[in-house]
């Protein structure tokens, strides 16, 4: 026998050299924006780990982040600008120099700008520089700009911003430290990747906290929930309505919070058929009115010691009648149709479960309050010694937003929060600065593209009534995507999913150039991919493409690249400057405002340029205001980093909030600072201004916080932000639809507007059950590929190279299917072939699969016979862009926000015949290969193995899970 003595300790090198340099930057493997440390050896990346000091991830890293280095090895990386030489879609290109590429783009865009700037449609996908790209569109003068929010999560953003002045995900988070009941609705795996995982880990370690996941599928987060509620898709609003019904019937309502912080007690004019019906009754000073419960008199809602009545119709001074908003709310939700027993079958949840959850929520909210010994001052100047909260928190995401009833479903969740008094309280939902904002936020969408002129404001905004819509006199949309028209009045994030169709159709007008950035619109980012491809390649009678020019910028050879006329190759995230700005999608947490940068860690080994640099250069060539000096020279010759340092907007606000002012001593507002980026780099590439504990809760009504926010430039006035259980803004649109006011919708849209612009939260059933297509079909991304470009990543693709359709065993049996069988998935608009896997953890009326695993053969540098192309599949082919009647307002979307209704898909399963090949379908023609030959063996790390340094072994130290991730929340308690 060999003895253990053969292996003395010294034979194992416990102290190899690791890195000769460590650089911090911000991850971009998904949208989460964690801080990372890139460990470099001889200029190459040895490994990437989480930055322990960073507020987003506190040192942890996810599967994608730890695989970022493999993006640098991807054979899909584009290497040089490309000019199309064959027909669109054939993938035949000529490599060109940047000078030629920029000449071509500047020629096309210059012609457009002189003629009609709106003929440029500039849409970005997973862009994290929207305050910059939107500004660029403004300077160019086109209203046709947006990013991908319209097909992602605008229902969450819109419902939140029009109800509570903030929203889930990026604008808010649960109070992980103090919550005792956490309801997670429809969260696709890993949206807000590490913060949610860190938070769930914290919750799971606390015996006094319960985590309930409401989700048709039990994977990932739902797998560790203390209770999984396998709801039927699209019925979350009905489930929440039943919870509200149960709470109202038991008087489990936080009356004080409703009175003080919401508009529940405000009087709503009750004069049906008149022009003021449904508007808030106001006094001579334009202050909302309430009824004083002690005297019965009409009083201003703003009075400090308000004790209002919540029900009871009254007569106003002018003889009109009015009733508190809450009365309408209660009338609606105490209706027997919302009793738990009445909704159980439709939701797929037993009535007893709904009743128990309502009782648990009430128990935690009203019997297990959390009190922090932190004094604070409210908006009425009253001092409070403590902060007391009802520790029920909620979070929701794609599963709520990607339905046509998503806006109102999300509003229902916010209504439940308001009823319980859990908005920005200890243990509840918390805003992340710069939220809350006034409801709705300031700023309206830009209108009026004119030749050679910039827009007067940013393209996207927040309509506060019909007068802010972008339509001409007959109701025709001003924007190509029809956002902010009568069709989709609250399409706050634009509607990327309609752009290709509308550009092809010339609806409402033809465009010249479609300019896309990081949006895989010829594949998994479009509904009905075959139709999209036809529209991209369709020609007019004169032989020209119906979409004459298509410019595309991306770092990788995606399925969309072959459809571009001009390809501008982008860098990877490790090769660029970037800015995660408070002006668009900041990295703030509830306890502090924060922003971040990316710095170039690696030098590109290809002839590629950061997209933002290219935009600035194009802007200078086009002499766009803001990008050009008076003498015609470029304003930012140093590219995007030059812009980040020197660009200043109104009120001395710039892209970055930290180290402003000439000496770097100013925060949020101040002059440009020459050394600002250096300060960021010294501080780990992020900036965070921690809020003092007294400013961390009740911020809709916390006077010192509101003043802080005003000074920071986040809100116009330091005024109380009443939460809107009742939305007068929505009612203004409804009144227009009912024939009031100068601006009214086209007749064809009156009923649609009147129905959907209900000022109260509304349960809207989706299409009635159809026995032809009885099953809901959903997708989600696996956590290791969420929001990422993972299929060309050599490590991530080993985790998932193909996808199956997951089916409940009972459902499979009814369809004659067994685990492993191949099936046709059939919708009203198409069919897809796939292999099934059975699982119990799925709602029986639902099938689902991992999204965006299926790839088109030949794309992404993968072998044409890669499993992604042979066995992988997408459900996109089954999802129509338009539903119901043809013509206006028929997009498969939420009728208020235009949010793409990906999850309204209904299908049936038909077992494949024995003679059908076990390959997914439909099959698209293989794209021609690009890039270097695929390597047969990867042995990246061999050259990076560290030499021994001979340093003595240090004592090991213990690590208890979760210990390193505790934030500064405890400062507050």
């Amino acid at each position, binding site marked *: 026998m060999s003895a253990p003595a053969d292996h003395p300790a010294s034979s194992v090198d416990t102290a190899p050299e690791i890195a000769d340099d460590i650089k911090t930057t911000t991850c971009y493997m998904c949208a989460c924006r964690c801080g990372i440390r890139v460990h470099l050896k001889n200029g190459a990346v040895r490994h990437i780990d989480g930055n322990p000091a960073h507020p987003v991830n506190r040192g942890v890293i996810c599967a994608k982040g730890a695989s970022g280095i493999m993006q640098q090895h991807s054979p899909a990386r584009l290497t040089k600008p490309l000019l199309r030489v064959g027909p669109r879609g054939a993938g035949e290109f000529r490599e060109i120099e940047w000078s030629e590429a920029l000449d071509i783009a500047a020629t096309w865009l210059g012609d457009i700008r002189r003629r009609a700037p709106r003929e440029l449609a500039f849409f970005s996908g997973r862009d994290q520089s929207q305050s910059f790209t939107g500004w660029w569109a403004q300077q160019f003068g086109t209203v046709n700009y947006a990013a991908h929010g319209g097909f992602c999560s605008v229902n969450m953003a819109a419902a939140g911003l029009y109800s509570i002045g903030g929203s889930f995900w990026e604008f808010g988070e649960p109070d992980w430290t103090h919550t005792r009941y956490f309801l997670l609705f429809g969260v696709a795996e890993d949206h807000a990747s590490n913060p949610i995982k860190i938070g769930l880990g914290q919750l799971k370690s606390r015996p006094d906290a319960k985590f309930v996941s409401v989700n048709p599928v039990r994977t990932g987060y739902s797998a560790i929930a203390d209770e999984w509620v396998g709801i039927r898709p699209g019925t979350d609003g009905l489930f929440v309505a039943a919870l509200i019904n149960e709470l109202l019937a038991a008087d489990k309502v936080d009356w004080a919070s409703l009175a003080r912080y919401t508009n529940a007690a405000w009087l709503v004019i009750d004069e049906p058929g008149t022009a003021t019906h449904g508007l808030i009754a106001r006094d001579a000073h334009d202050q909302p009115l309430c009824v004083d419960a002690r005297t019965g008199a009409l009083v201003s809602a703003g009075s400090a010691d308000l004790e209002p009545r919540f029900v009871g119709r009254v007569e106003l001074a002018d003889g009109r009648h009015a009733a508190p908003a809450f009365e309408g709310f209660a009338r609606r939700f105490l209706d027997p149709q919302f009793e738990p027993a009445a909704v159980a079958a439709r939701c797929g949840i037993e009535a007893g479960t709904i009743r128990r959850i309502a009782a648990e929520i009430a128990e935690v909210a009203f019997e297990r309050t959390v009190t922090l010994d932190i004094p604070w001052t409210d908006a009425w100047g009253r001092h409070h010694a403590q902060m007391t909260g009802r520790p029920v928190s909620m979070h929701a995401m794609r599963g709520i937003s990607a339905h046509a009833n998503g806006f109102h479903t999300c509003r229902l969740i916010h209504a439940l929060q308001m009823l319980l008094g859990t908005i920005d309280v200890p243990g509840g939902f918390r805003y992340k600065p710069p939220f809350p904002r006034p409801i709705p936020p300031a700023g309206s969408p830009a209108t009026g593209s004119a030749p050679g002129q910039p827009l007067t404001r940013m393209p996207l905004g927040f309509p506060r009534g019909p007068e802010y819509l972008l339509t001409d006199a007959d109701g025709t949309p001003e924007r190509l995507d029809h956002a902010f028209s009568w069709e989709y009045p609250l399409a706050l994030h634009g509607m990327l999913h309609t752009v290709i169709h509308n550009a092809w159709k010339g609806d409402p007008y033809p465009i010249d150039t479609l300019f896309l950035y990081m949006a895989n619109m010829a594949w998994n980012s479009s509904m009905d991919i075959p139709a999209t491809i036809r529209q991209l390649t369709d020609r007019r009678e004169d032989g020209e493409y119906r979409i004459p020019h298509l410019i595309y910028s991306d770092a990788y050879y995606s399925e969309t690249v072959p459809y571009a006329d001009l390809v501008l190759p982008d860098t990877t995230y490790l090769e660029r400057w970037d800015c995660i700005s408070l002006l668009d999608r900041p990295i703030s947490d509830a306890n502090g405002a924060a922003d971040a940068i990316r710095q170039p860690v690696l030098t590109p080994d290809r002839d590629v340029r950061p997209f933002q640099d290219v935009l600035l250069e194009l802007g200078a060539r086009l002499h766009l205001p803001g990008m050009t000096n008076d003498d015609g020279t470029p304003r930012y010759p140093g590219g995007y980093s030059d812009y980040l340092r020197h660009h200043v907007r109104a009120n001395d606000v710039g892209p970055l909030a930290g180290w402003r002012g000439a000496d770097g001593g100013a925060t949020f507002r101040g002059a440009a600072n020459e050394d600002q980026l250096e300060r960021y780099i010294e501080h780990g590439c992020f900036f965070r201004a921690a809020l003092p504990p007294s400013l961390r809760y009740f911020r809709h009504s916390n006077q010192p916080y509101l003043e802080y926010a005003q000074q920071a430039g986040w809100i116009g006035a330091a005024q109380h932000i009443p939460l809107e259980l009742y939305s007068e803004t929505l009612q203004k649109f409804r009144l227009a639809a009912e024939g009031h006011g100068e601006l009214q919708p086209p007749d064809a849209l009156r009923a649609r507007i009147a129905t959907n612009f209900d000022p109260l939260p509304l349960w809207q059933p989706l299409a009635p059950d159809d026995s032809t297509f009885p099953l809901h079909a959903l997708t989600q991304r696996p956590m290791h590929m969420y929001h990422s470009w993972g299929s060309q990543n050599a490590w991530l693709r080993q985790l998932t190279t193909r996808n199956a359709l997951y089916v409940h065993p009972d459902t499979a049996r009814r369809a004659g299917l067994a685990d492993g069988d191949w099936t046709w998935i059939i919708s009203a608009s198409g069919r897809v072939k796939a292999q099934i896997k059975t699982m119990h953890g799925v709602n029986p009326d639902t099938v689902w699969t991992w999204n965006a695993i299926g790839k088109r053969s030949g794309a992404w540098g993968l072998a044409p016979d890669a499993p992604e192309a042979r066995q992988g599949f997408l459900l996109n082919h089954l999802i129509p862009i338009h539903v119901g009647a043809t013509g206006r307002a028929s997009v498969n979307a939420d009728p208020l926000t235009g949010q793409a209704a990906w999850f309204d898909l209904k299908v049936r399963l038909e077992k494949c015949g024995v003679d059908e090949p076990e390959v997914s379908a439909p099959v698209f023609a293989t794209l021609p290969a690009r890039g270097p030959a695929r390597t047969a063996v990867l042995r990246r790390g061999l050259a990076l193995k560290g030499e021994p340094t001979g340093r003595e072994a*240090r004592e090991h130290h213990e690590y208890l899970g979760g210990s390193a991730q505790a934030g500064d929340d405890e400062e507050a308690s």
Partner: protein
Amino acid sequence: MTMLPQTTAKKLGLVIDLDTCVGCHACATSCKQWNDAGHSAPLTDTDPYGAAPDGVWFNRVHSYEVQTAHGSKTVNFPKSCLHCDNAPCVTVCPTGASFKRVEDGIVLVDADKCIGCKLCSWACPYGAREYDATDGVMKKCTLCVDRIYNENLDAAARVPACVAACPTGARSFGDLGDPASGVSALVRARGGYDLMPEQGCAPVNQYLPPRAVTPLVQQPLSRHAGGIESALLRWIDRVLS
């Protein structure tokens, strides 16, 4: 045959909380990334962009369903070498390449002695060994022996890469041979258990089972009868009283 040490000074190992693991694979890719350039570098990948991509991974996460008394449950199960006290992979090794360190109990492979016979992978009941066909040697989890003692890293990073990465805090690391250690206390508190104890391997790594969930309430809310009309009366009274 290779001998195991009679005892080890420490029993360094992992405690993995199955009640908290969401199956995100952060541990798996962080492990891959570190060890690709680590003690056993590289962790070769073959056909990385082709029809049958494969690679060496020291840590893999399996997700599956189990049936329990309360219905089915989804389990995310990360698996790596358990650094067993009675490691059959060591005793089966014909060359002495597989060994268990006396000082900390970590099971390693000496690549210079490994002949790639794969007996160890047959002997391991957990399937934790990884053969690198390109190098022709067996590789495996080193418990990041080149991290945990390594003064070239900052102190906080001197834990296994999988542990440092884990976003939910489902992974802990320490001396399971020391009853006073935090990890030992965690195992006691949570009822940590040996994986497949019937195999007699005496694994050092421990798994924590799901916590019991106790009901928050015994009764549903008591509803007032009478719907909205009764509520309106009630609420008018409430505010007036």
